[in-house]
């Protein structure tokens, strides 16, 4: 049996958790800012191959002039987030994206699509007033991550692959972070890595929903670790649903994966089982309404049982001409075909699917947190998007703030002279938490995970009510206590996925409770959060965001006033003569 | 055969390799035979006489076939490597085998 006496101990200067856009950028920037320091990058999967940045399809938002401006990008972000974003963070996001995209193209080597005149090609995602999304076909994330990965792999950076962070360990006196506890998944052994600065970039990921898009490795580990250390988490009720996830039945992991937004943009229609095109009953823009509205429209049909065999609705493209569809969306058509569906010629079942998590750790615009030595960037950090993230702002956010974190850690570390001794009690606690299931009788974990996903989908999903959320919270308590009685066969801990399934489920349960509690606390409807019992958005001037914090066994959700540090509701940064939307103006 | 190899162009590769080796093994023999022209002309004539035997004919046919398979296969490879990429690789592989067959048939027929 592993104990803290025989765990592997390891020291570094700068430790980075996760290799999405945030983690990889942080590594490159930290190395540039502090070339003499030892940098270690630790990740739950293989470097660059796990996480969601790689799954980005649509692209990267950046205002590159010619009629667009940082101000316009910023206003779109604030309006998209329904005035909840931390404005300083949103501003820094929009402003730095301009430099970051040049860095990606000029220094990292990303190969973005061009216009005929040789300039970057940009298109528009829903909710934008300008064609500002830079992309590489519809596989932008693969391009960004592959290029970043090459740069990181070719540098002298220590790599700990298939190392899963399970606990943030504070210093003895509790004033700073001492290091991070890992499971080396390949051997099943524990490893404690001390570091002077740690970036957490584990990428959130709302995979506690029955239908979800993120990669399988993302299970809210980072936020759960932060919660256990008592760090404040904001906007935790804000889960973004993508309206069209592929629905292939419960037996396939393809279920929940994204069918891209462009399908609806190009004229794809949504039908229920009676062949009725229902979206126009809900919104005059029909299928082209924003993500949240379409998701709610589909969800309402599902409630009325107007559903396809697997319980969703249909997307139909064939009226646009199968060959045309095949030509325009080769990737999507091939993906559907590989899993047995004919997108070009037939209807395909779809369902809303949990896509992105706006909530996260409270940080300042320099990625610093309340705990000295801990930095958070990317989807793990809350604030930049408020109640809703614009398509294309996700990868901009992770790359911008990952880079910021690398720079800031590189600078801060110059004054952090010594490594801290860890609080051994907490280290012990975290180890025994991970070992807990090995002493219980093995049973099926997936069944319980499915129950969690059903509960969250039904009670804390696209449409919410107080009653439902309370039911959800009660069910979460049951699931949590059942989990603690559920065991895992610990005969061989090397690459023991079932053990990790158990730990994943624990992280998901912990954060699900916070989502539900925050959703209960927000008694209005903003962006991704919709309360049927409070359908109004409330006044923008008195906008608040939720802050959740765990003290001992108690979870506390407070409301904090949004500070309009740059622009107030009703105002705009756009000049008087500027059109509200440049999309129409150009066309 | 391993299932990752069951495709035309892998078979073309192994045919090229096999024919190459066969040629290298045959050549010393051939050279040796020729040099006997100087040292031992009678044996040469005897041997050449022996080549009238049908079995030897078939063997010769095989050899010429391998030689031309190797040449055309080699030309195909060099075309692939040095000329602009074309998508006729499989056709070319089949073509070179066919032409080789033709040539060796001619050789065989003219020999009997």
């Amino acid at each position, binding site marked *: 049996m592993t104990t803290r006496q025989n765990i592997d101990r390891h020291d570094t200067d700068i430790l980075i958790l996760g290799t999405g856009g945030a983690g990889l950028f942080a590594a490159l920037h930290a190395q540039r800012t502090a070339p003499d320091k030892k940098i270690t990058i630790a990740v739950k999967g293989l470097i660059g191959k796990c996480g969601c940045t790689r799954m980005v399809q649509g692209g990267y938002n950046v205002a590159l002039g010619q009629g667009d401006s940082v101000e316009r990008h910023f206003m779109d972000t604030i309006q998209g987030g329904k005035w909840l974003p931390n404005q300083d963070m949103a501003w820094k996001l929009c402003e730095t994206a301009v430099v970051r995209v040049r860095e990606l193209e000029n220094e990292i080597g990303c190969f973005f699509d061009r216009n005929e005149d040789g300039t970057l090609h940009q298109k528009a995602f829903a909710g934008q007033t300008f064609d500002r999304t830079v992309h590489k076909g519809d596989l932008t994330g693969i391009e960004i991550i592959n290029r970043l990965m090459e740069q990181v792999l070719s540098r002298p950076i220590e790599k700990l692959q298939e190392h899963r962070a399970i606990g943030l360990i504070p210093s003895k006196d509790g004033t700073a972070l001492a290091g991070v506890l890992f499971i080396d998944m390949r051997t099943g052994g524990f490893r404690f890595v001390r570091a002077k600065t740690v970036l957490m970039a584990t990428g959130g990921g709302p995979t506690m929903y029955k239908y979800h898009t993120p990669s399988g490795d993302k299970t809210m580990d980072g936020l759960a670790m932060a919660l256990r250390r008592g760090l404040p988490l904001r906007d935790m009720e804000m889960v973004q649903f993508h309206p069209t996830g592929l629905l292939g039945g419960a037996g396939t992991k393809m279920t929940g994966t994204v069918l891209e937004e462009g399908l609806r943009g190009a004229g794809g229609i949504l039908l229920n089982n009676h062949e009725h095109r229902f979206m126009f009953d809900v919104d005059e823009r029909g299928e082209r309404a924003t993500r949240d509205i379409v998701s709610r429209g589909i969800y309402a049909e599902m409630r009325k049982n107007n559903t396809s065999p697997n319980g969703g609705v249909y997307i139909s493209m064939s009226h646009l001409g199968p060959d045309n569809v095949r030509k325009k969306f080769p990737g999507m058509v091939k993906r559907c075909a590989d899993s047995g569906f004919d997108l070009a010629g037939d209807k395909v079942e779809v369902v809303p699917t949990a896509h992105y998590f706006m909530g996260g750790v409270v940080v300042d615009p320099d990625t610093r947190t309340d705990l000295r030595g801990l930095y958070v960037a990317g989807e793990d950090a809350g604030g930049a998007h408020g109640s809703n993230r614009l398509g294309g702002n996700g990868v901009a956010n992770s790359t911008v703030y990952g880079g910021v974190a690398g720079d800031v850690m590189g600078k801060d570390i110059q004054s952090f002279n010594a490594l801290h001794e860890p609080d051994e009690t907490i280290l012990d606690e975290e180890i025994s938490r991970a070992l807990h299931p090995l002493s219980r009788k093995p049973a099926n974990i997936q069944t319980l995970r499915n129950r969690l996903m059903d509960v969250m989908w039904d009670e804390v999903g696209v449409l919410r009510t107080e009653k439902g959320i309370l039911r959800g919270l009660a069910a979460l308590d049951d699931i949590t206590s059942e989990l603690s009685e559920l065991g895992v066969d610990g005969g061989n801990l090397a690459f023991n996925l079932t053990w990790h399934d158990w730990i994943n489920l624990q992280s998901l349960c912990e954060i699900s409770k916070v989502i539900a509690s925050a959703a209960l606390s927000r008694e209005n409807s903003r962006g991704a959060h919709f309360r049927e019992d409070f359908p109004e958005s409330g006044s923008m001037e008195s906008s608040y965001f939720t802050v959740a914090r765990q003290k001992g066994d108690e979870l506390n959700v407070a409301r904090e006033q949004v500070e309009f540090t740059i622009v107030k509701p009703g105002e705009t940064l756009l000049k008087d003569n500027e059109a509200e939307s440049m999309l129409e103006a150009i066309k | 055969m391993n299932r990752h190899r069951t495709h035309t162009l892998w078979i073309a590769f192994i045919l090229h390799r096999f024919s190459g080796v066969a040629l290298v093994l045959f050549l010393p023999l051939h050279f040796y035979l020729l040099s006997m022209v100087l040292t031992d002309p009678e044996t040469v004539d005897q041997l050449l006489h022996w080549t009238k035997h049908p079995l030897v004919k078939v063997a010769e046919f095989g050899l010429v076939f391998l030689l031309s398979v190797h*040449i055309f296969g080699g*030309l195909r490879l060099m075309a692939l490597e040095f000329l602009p990429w074309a998508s006729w690789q499989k056709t070319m592989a089949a073509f070179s085998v066919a032409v080789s067959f033709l040539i060796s048939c001619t050789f065989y027929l003219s020999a009997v």
Partner: protein
Amino acid sequence: MLDLRLYMAQRLTALIMVPLTFGHIAVMIYAIEGGLSAAEILSRTKGSLAWALFYGTFVVAVSIHGAIGLRVIMFETFDLKGRPLSIFSWAVFLSLLYLGARAVYAVTTT
């Protein structure tokens, strides 16, 4: 186990051999037509500098080409490497060259 130099040598020798082999095959087909004897072969080639050059070039090319070819196979399939591999390659090259040269000498000198 090819680097650029060996690769180029293999390809260049192959290109050189193409016309030579075609020529040889053509001659053979023609020769066989009339039934072949040692004397007949010799009467054609003896004393001909052209034939000496023709076959000489072929022998040099094929020795290089074949030696490199076998070298690759010995490395890939029989895991021969380092010095033994070099020795093997040279041995193949030299024996082919020796046997080939003897053959050319035999059929072209008077």
